[in-house]
């Protein structure tokens, strides 16, 4: 990794580096590369039976990776001096992520093009594009995809509510800390606990307090999961309940950081509160809104726990999310090959979706405020 021109923070190199030091840096780096490759090769040969000595597991290879990672960092400094020290900021995180993700992803890719049912006596069989063909004609998968679109669309409502709450919290109120803490609480709860205590206990149709409340309001036979539409809505409400605090807090932070003078100026100009909101507050809040919505979308795309625990996707797949469907395919049916392919396709789709969304929203923000939000 090298440092390109155009740093925000300019530094001045003090002194030159001795060639010996640079030489030593390179030697150390390549020695550690050699060590890592050597350990890996030795262990691979041992595991495949070509040589008879080796370690009982691959951990030594991991250690040699650590040595290499350390040497890589060290050599940056030895070879590039101050410039190299800059690389040290990003390298540890990057090396960590790469070490944790590269192997699993490659392995997952390998698995996803195979016919692998864990119960099968024959094990994994490569089957080319069969899984893709099966996916194309899998009504459950596309149904779940469609549900995801609705789930994601619901974020706009969550955002509106959260904005309202943030405005409330930012208003001139007493005991602000109490309200803030209270509003934050749902975020702290585990989805598993929420599924059971809210989804199953509070929504229980006979003794659940919400059902009794609904009856009191005049809904004679409250049924929160009876029809597809209502079931979907209930799931969305429960998920929203957990995550609205998150959006609220981000928006509140934005509101509190907003320059007071601008609003005051608008007030002096005689703008109504409604105008003030739409012409001043909202545009100013756009960058933080985009960030909050983005993070929220990512969390929403992974929604599964609540659905798995409360409805198992029912009735008839109406509440299925992609992850909860893959979860059933994968865990209940041990259909690893197909399940992994579904997940990989989903991953590709959401990466594309998120990339487009980020580009579009960045442009939107730029147009509205003239500020780059990336």
């Amino acid at each position: 990794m090298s440092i390109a021109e155009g740093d925000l923070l300019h530094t001045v190199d003090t002194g030159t580096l001795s060639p010996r030091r640079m030489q030593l840096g390179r030697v150390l780096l390549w020695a550690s590369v050699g060590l890592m490759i050597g350990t890996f090769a030795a262990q691979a040969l041992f595991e495949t039976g070509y040589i008879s000595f080796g370690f009982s597991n691959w951990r030594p290879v991991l250690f040699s990776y650590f040595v290499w990672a350390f040497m890589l960092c060290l050599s940056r400094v030895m070879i590039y001096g101050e410039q190299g020290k800059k690389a040290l900021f990003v390298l540890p995180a990057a090396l960590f992520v790469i070490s944790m993700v590269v192997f699993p992803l490659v392995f997952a890719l390998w698995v996803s093009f195979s016919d692998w049912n864990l119960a099968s006596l024959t094990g994994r069989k490569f089957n080319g594009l069969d899984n893709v063909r099966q996916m194309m004609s899998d009504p459950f998968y596309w149904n779940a995809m469609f549900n995801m679109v609705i789930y994601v669309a619901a974020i706009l409502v969550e955002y509106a509510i959260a904005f309202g709450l943030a405005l409330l919290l930012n208003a001139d109120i007493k005991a602000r800390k109490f309200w803030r803490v209270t509003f934050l609480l749902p975020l702290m709860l585990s989805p598993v606990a929420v599924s059971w205590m809210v989804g199953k206990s509070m929504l229980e149709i006979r003794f659940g307090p919400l059902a009794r409340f609904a009856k009191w309001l005049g809904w004679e036979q409250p049924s929160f999961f009876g029809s597809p539409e209502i079931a979907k809505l209930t799931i969305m409400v429960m998920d929203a309940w957990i995550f609205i605090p998150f959006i609220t807090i981000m928006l509140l932070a934005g509101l509190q950081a907003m320059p007071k003078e601008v609003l005051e100026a608008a007030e002096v100009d005689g703008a109504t509160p409604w105008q003030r909101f739409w012409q001043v507050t909202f545009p100013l809040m756009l960058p933080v809104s985009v960030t909050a919505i983005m993070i929220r979308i990512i969390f929403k795309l992974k929604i599964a726990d609540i659905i798995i625990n409360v409805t198992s996707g029912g009735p008839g797949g109406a509440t299925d999310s992609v992850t909860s469907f893959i979860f059933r395919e994968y865990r209940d049916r041990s259909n690893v090959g197909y399940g992994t392919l579904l997940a990989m396709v989903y991953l590709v789709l959401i990466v594309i979706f998120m990339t487009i969304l980020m580009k579009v929203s960045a442009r939107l923000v730029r147009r509205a405020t003239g500020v780059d939000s990336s």
Partner: protein
Amino acid sequence: MKAHIYEKLMAMQASRRDVLKGTAGAVAALSASSMLGGMPALADGHSKLRAEILKIPGVGAGSPTDADWQKVGEMCLAATKENVKEGEFAGVELTFMGLNNQNLHNFLFRGFLKPWEAYTGAKINWIDLAQGDYNARLQQAIATGTVDFDIAEMGAPFEGDVCGKGLASEMPDWVKAQIDMDDYVGYLKAPVGTWDGKTYRISIDGDCHNFNYRTDYYADETLKAAWKEAGNDSEWAAPLTWQEVQAQSKFLKGKTDPLTGQSAHGYLDPLKGWGGFAFYFLASRATAYAKHPNDPAWLFDPDTMKPRVNNEAWVRAIQDVLDIMDTQPADQINADPGTTAFQQFLAGTGSMVAWWGDVGSSAKTSDSSVVGDVTGFSILPGSDDVWNHKEGKWETLASGPNYAPNMAYIGWGVYVMARVDSDEKKKKAAWSAAAHLGGKDLSLWCSAYPSGFQPYRQSHFNIDEWAEAGYDKAFIEDYLSSEADSYNHPNAAIEPRIPGIFQYYSVAEDELAKIYAGQYKSAQEGADAIAAAWEKITDQIGRESQIALYKASIGL
């Protein structure tokens, strides 16, 4: 108290061993007669022990606690002591994988095995899994070679996956003797628990669906009169066939529950999936239609593995569910079997439910049950006609309605993994621990108290023992005979122990959910979708091997 019992136990044990030293003939005669219920000298000390066990903590004394489990474990240690010297397994560490089901199962085992650990010197590490995680975890462990446990609590449906792949350790003969395998009820004996003629399983549980109904509905004069008024000739009594179940369920719509005063409901169908387990409930409805006495197969064609789930019998069962969907409580579409049994039936909603024995054992003892005094039991309803799959037509049997109790899940067992085989000491320790849990006396306690386990031995059906422990005799007789009659039924529908059986169930649940939600035009169309999905799974796992295993599992 504890020491006092312990001493008593020791004394009893001594006398028992003395007797055992006597002539073998006498012992044989005595044990034979004990089967008949007359408990002579030898069995007397033993029956006292059993009576003592049943008094911990006592019927109606609330849920047993840790201390109770340990006490029971200690009292039942005698069998172990005969085979294992004190401190023999010092230094051995075993890993036990099982369920944590509401802090029962593995927690119970921990309590039972604490005295065992203290006596033998072995140490046990525990892997607790939620029921939903169990199957996935097991499959992944097998597939990736990460079997990290020595002993596993496992259901018979998984035997195909574990024993079929040579991962289990064969049961030594001394274990067979210690746990008295001959005492098992008929259907738990071989071939269940065996694979290629080798025995692997220590049963700790027996499972079948029985039929639970509310007796107060049939004692209620208003309902009786209304039933006659509706133009029914038949008696207003507990149903014997599914046809009657259907008729009564439809009749009960709009009536009032005699116990709770809420609206009455008939048979409770779980319409939501339960990780594969909900399929058993459709199967319980279907077996009377689909399991012909002359044909051991009812789920697949044994020669081709072609699914029968879309034949007329199964479609009729699905249609039955659809027919009475409007009689169910509100929101039934989101009710899984746990809901129908525990939140509905035991809580006084609905008059009929098919379930495992848990409903019966919880009706009186569970804190959440209100129907303890008004629950009756029988084997699953039959059917006036039965589908003959080979002939392709409905038949009315000369013997009357066709009954076919569903031996759903076949119960939990304890299995020792093959990875202990290389170390004799460890192997013996593992089997000794497993045998302790599958012990004859220990199991009596488990079947009488909340443990998650049902009666599974002939000796569990000694009504007097239960009555002496404080159970209501009429109730326990009714309950136990519904279990025993199911277990010993000649036309019992035994679940195939083939690899991946839960995959079939799981995919069927997804399709059933769509059927119940009205997304298919007809029950037949939905059943065809299930069959198609099953064919896919069979091909994936390997048709030839599935055929062979299926045939073996139904004794062909």
